[in-house]
């Protein structure tokens, strides 16, 4: 079990690398688009649609990591109260499971919308990239986030010793 979790954490590096690449590409593309437009009157015409794609890839590649790694924005006003009654672990486990379960319906719906989009043949303006690819990417990223949250929540309640500090 422990080695399985270890392997999962190693695997986690792949989507993070993908997100970093998308972000760097976004920065470089924006820069060259401006320079090419200003100096050679030759903007990167697909820049707008590529911007959209890079941002979506960046966000949804790291979404599982953000969701399990406690990076979501939350209000920690009542932390002291929970700590005093030693309820932190239970609270975190329950919220992880509830949040993960909550995502199941949106994930299903995004798949439905993606397939609908495929049936209509929607593509991007310049590069004619089918829109449903991006939607599927979003669905998969959100789906992995949902599953990881449920698993992390269950572990937190049932076997907290398995979750080392590096998961936080």
């Amino acid at each position, binding site marked *: 079990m422990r080695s399985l979790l270890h392997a999962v954490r190693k695997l986690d590096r792949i989507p993070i690398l993908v997100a970093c690449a998308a972000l760097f590409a976004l920065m470089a593309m924006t820069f060259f688009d401006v320079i090419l*437009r200003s100096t050679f*009157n*030759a*903007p990167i*015409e697909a*820049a*707008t*649609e590529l911007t959209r794609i890079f941002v979506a890839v960046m966000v949804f590649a790291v979404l599982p990591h953000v969701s399990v790694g406690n990076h979501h924005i939350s209000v920690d006003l009542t932390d002291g109260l929970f700590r005093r009654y030693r309820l932190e672990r239970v609270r975190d486990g329950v919220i992880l499971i509830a949040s993960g379960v909550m995502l199941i319906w949106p994930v299903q719906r995004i798949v439905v*919308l993606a397939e*609908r989009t495929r049936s*209509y*043949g*929607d*593509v*991007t*303006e*310049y590069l*004619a990239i*089918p*829109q449903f690819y991006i939607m599927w990417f979003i669905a998969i990223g959100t789906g992995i986030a949902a599953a990881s949250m449920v698993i992390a929540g269950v572990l937190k309640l049932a076997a907290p010793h398995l979750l080392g500090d590096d998961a936080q």
Partner: protein
Amino acid sequence: ADYTLTISSWAPPTHNINAKMWPKFTEMVEEATDGRVTTDLKLGLAPPPAQMDLIQDGAADLSIIFHGYQAGRFVTTKLIELPGYTGSAEEASVAYWRAYDKYLSNADEHRGVKVVAMHTHGPAQLHTADKVESIDDISGLKLRVPGGVGGDVGEALGATGIKVPAPKVYETLASGAADGVVMPVDSRQGFKLTEVAPHLYEMPGGFYRGSFAFIMNEGSFQRLPEDIRTALEEEVFGEPISREIGKIWDAGDQQSLELTKEAAGNTMTVASEADQAKFEEISSGIIDEVITQVGETGVDAEAAYEMLSSELSAD
């Protein structure tokens, strides 16, 4: 009222779509149903490309879509976008509805929702920061153009296409990132082009026309009692509302033209006969291409084009 239809819309609240068109639609609906049906307008529920999904699944009852925002989905709607038709937005919208009803609807591109109106804004013209005197001046300009036919026309004229969403047009022009924009005259007021693109270059018939539809959730329509449905179908939906929306687009153009005449530093140039002929030649390739594309969807593209051309010819 017994029934309230929720409208989802996206342009700014002051845009004619929200300030005039939906109110007109509501007025017609209330009149046709003796006040038993009314509407509730909600802005900003989702960006434009999401509207059709929202309506199909009932997140709202009615919405407006701009076909150019969904490349690949709408092909037959490119027919009305073509340059070369003369005629006001009213005439074009009526002709468009008729062509849609008779031919274009066979492609079933709006499957999943009920089409309530098909309409088009007035002829799109060129608005620039520096004055354009002839069609040759356009080559080399950085122009904000829409997708679809508008983009093809810009390319054929040798302009460099800048793609930004409509609400960013003002900033894009103000910062100099684009030299001009091809839009309906109506937008001179709405997007404050009189400030950032004072010079108007007018091609009779326009460089393209934008294609819009009003759509409705099928279930929301079916849930209405039969007499109301009949009244709406006969007195509002289809040609009547398309015509009224066209009129509003025309009035917007007129208002912006007057504003342009008054605004300091604004100029208007109408393309010379020679330039018009040149443009006709440039655009003929695009027209053939679009007719072929539309034909590939299985509708009678030639007949539909003939119908639009004959209803929208100068004589």
